[in-house]
């Protein structure tokens, strides 16, 4: 269980609170999707969980342990992180990228190699074909699969994902998103995913948390959000995919 207790992030330069006193719990095994408009504080909230961003105030507890007081390096090694830009190391091969966290942890080489094989299989990218390739020789979708494999390598129980499918072409996205959801279930992961794509949120989430201007506006299952939006803002947000589906049906019908 991840507990965000009155979590706050203020930037000194602007004096503005990107996240203001956020309280949120994420149950073990839950798939939580954080949504909201650009600048609402959802990415800041996400990156505070592995302390890529240091909170100004408040607490983050993972399974009861206050992680704001512990070593951030050790913390990050047990949390998977996937983001839109992927950030594969360009000077390392696909296999070396996947093995990096284990290498940092001093895991024996043989075990690392076995784990790389296993993850490449799971990503349906056979090692013989892809293992020795450098990131520049991979497609966008292949890169994000390697990024995902890299995040999973150290067998984290928590995965943080910042618009992981945002830069992918629609076909690849529609393939990779459900694949990840399946992985989440199979591995018993706890996932926090940030997106501004409401459709993606509805299709993936166990629970959706809507943020605006650093505050939590509403959190609930997709069904709860759709049936009982707390205000006009949330209503507008959920109207968007519905309206698009409607428009699409009309265009398709006319054809």
């Amino acid at each position: 269980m991840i507990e965000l207790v009155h979590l706050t992030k203020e930037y000194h330069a602007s004096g503005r609170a990107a996240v203001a006193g956020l309280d949120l719990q994420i149950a073990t095994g839950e798939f939580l999707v954080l949504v909201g408009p650009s600048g609402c504080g959802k990415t800041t909230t996400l990156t505070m969980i592995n302390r890529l961003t240091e909170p100004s105030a408040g607490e983050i507890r993972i399974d009861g342990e206050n992680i704001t007081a512990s070593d951030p390096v050790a913390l990050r090694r047990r949390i998977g992180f996937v983001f839109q830009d992927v950030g594969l190391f360009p000077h390392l091969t696909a296999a070396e990228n996947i093995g990096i966290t284990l290498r940092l942890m001093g895991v024996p080489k043989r075990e690392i190699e076995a784990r790389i094989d296993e993850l490449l299989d799971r990503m349906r990218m056979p090692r013989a074909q892809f293992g020795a390739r450098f990131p520049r020789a991979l497609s966008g979708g292949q890169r994000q699969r390697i990024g995902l494999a890299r995040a999973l390598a150290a067998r984290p129980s928590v995965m943080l994902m910042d618009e992981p499918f945002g830069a992918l072409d629609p076909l690849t996205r529609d393939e990779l998103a459900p694949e990840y959801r399946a992985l989440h279930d199979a591995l018993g992961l706890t996932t926090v995913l940030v997106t501004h794509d409401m459709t993606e949120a509805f299709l993936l989430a166990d629970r959706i948390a809507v943020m605006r201007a650093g505050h939590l506006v509403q959190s609930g299952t997709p069904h709860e959000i759709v049936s009982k939006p707390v205000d006009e803002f949330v209503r507008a947000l959920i109207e968007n995919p519905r309206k698009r589906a409607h428009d699409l049906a009309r265009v398709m019908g006319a054809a």
Partner: protein
Amino acid sequence: MSGLDAAWASLPEYLGWHVLLSLSAILLGVAISLPLAILSARIRVLRGAALGLASIVQTIPGLALLALFYPILLGLSAFTQTTFGFGFRALGFLPALAALTLYSMLPVLRNTITGLTGIDPAVMTAARAVGMTGSQQLLLVELPLAAPVILAGIRTAAVWVIGTATLSTPVGQTSLGNYIFTGLQTENWILVLFGCVAAALLALVVDRLLAFAEDGLVLRSRARLIGSAAGLALVIGVSIFPLLAAAREHPIVIGTKSFEEQYILGALIGDRLEKAGFTTQHRDGLGSQVIFDALAAGDVDVYVDYSGTVWSDDMKRTDLPSRAIVLTQMADWLKTKHGITYVGPLGFENAYAFAMRADKAAALHINSLADLSAYARRMKIGGDFEIFSRPEWRSVENAYGLRFGVQRVYQPDFLYRALMSGEVDVISAFSSDGRIAQYKLKLLSDPKGALPPYDAVLLVSPAHAHDGKLLAALKPLIGSIDLATMQRANLSVDRDTDKLSPEQAARVLEANVAIRARQRHFAP
């Protein structure tokens, strides 16, 4: 072309020192610049300061930067001597190394900072997110990614340093610059070209090898990296090996100042000592003050100075007693103050003198410096680099009330041409210069005795004060060269046709010395 033979013969020594010096400077430069750049990439304030300083260093002319380190190190050495009881050599390798190290820093600093700050921020986010510590981010991500850019900086630095290292000759460090400086002084353009081509080739080879390594980094080709490293190791090994072989021999270091006569006498001394079984090393083209300090410090073991120079520059004397008194007092002072041994006078004087074209002097009825005072205001005087800042010049100015309309400074070889072409009316000259006779110049007399005597004198360093074998090998030179002989020798190197190399002129001179020695031997 026997000058070229001599050039080839000195190549192992010159190239060896050039490579050793450049290599040390680049390694030291990288060792300083790399950590500084890594810090600077993180700390913005430091970045401005480091790059600013390195850029300023870059704007200082290479020769001046090298020259500046000599007094700095001399002061530092004096300080450590009095404070900690040990000194170090302020001449030669150290000042050259210090200056070249500074010179090498800017490209390495700039490229390393550019390389580190130019890394995709997403990659750095990933580096933190996978759980790298700060030093792991640096070693596993930042440095490997910046490596090609850093190496490109090192490549630029290497080419700069190899080029600039030719300027280390005047501070007493042997390098390929020895060809260039000796060639310039003796107007041996082939020698100058030889030095330039050798330095350029070395720079080119190193540049290509480093470029190959750069490709290796970019393409992650181990073969290229190994090939490049092997090539560099070969170049370094082959060049430095002769030095290591020679280093075991403790050579006698012969110093020369930067004009023909000195090169000839240096070669003459070298030949004699080699024949007497010594191994010798030459430090050519040293500045007047530099060479004296070097002798006192033992960086140079033997050289020829001039009594008037020691009298006014080193002893800071302004009075002008007779020649005999100057010599005895100088010998005393050298021994007691510096432990330097005065072996004796060579037999000729190379005094400061002032010369005019004979026709012009005759037309104006000018015979002496005193006659000049009426015309000086409307005249132009040319001098070498030193004369106008020397006490002798002030003494002449004051004694005869000379105030010239225009003062110009020339490289010594161009001085005579300036006089003959009428660019200047009077020049400073040296009495032993062969060109005075060649151009039939009028030497102006010094009725008031404003100029001190300038006997060529042989001096030996404190360490060899009791080296009987060395002194015995040098003794036959005393009193063996008269003014006419020296003028002829100087002219044979200076003239435009049938030019001899200083080494060849030294052999002619040696024959003279031998004849004189025999004459003395058989004299009753």
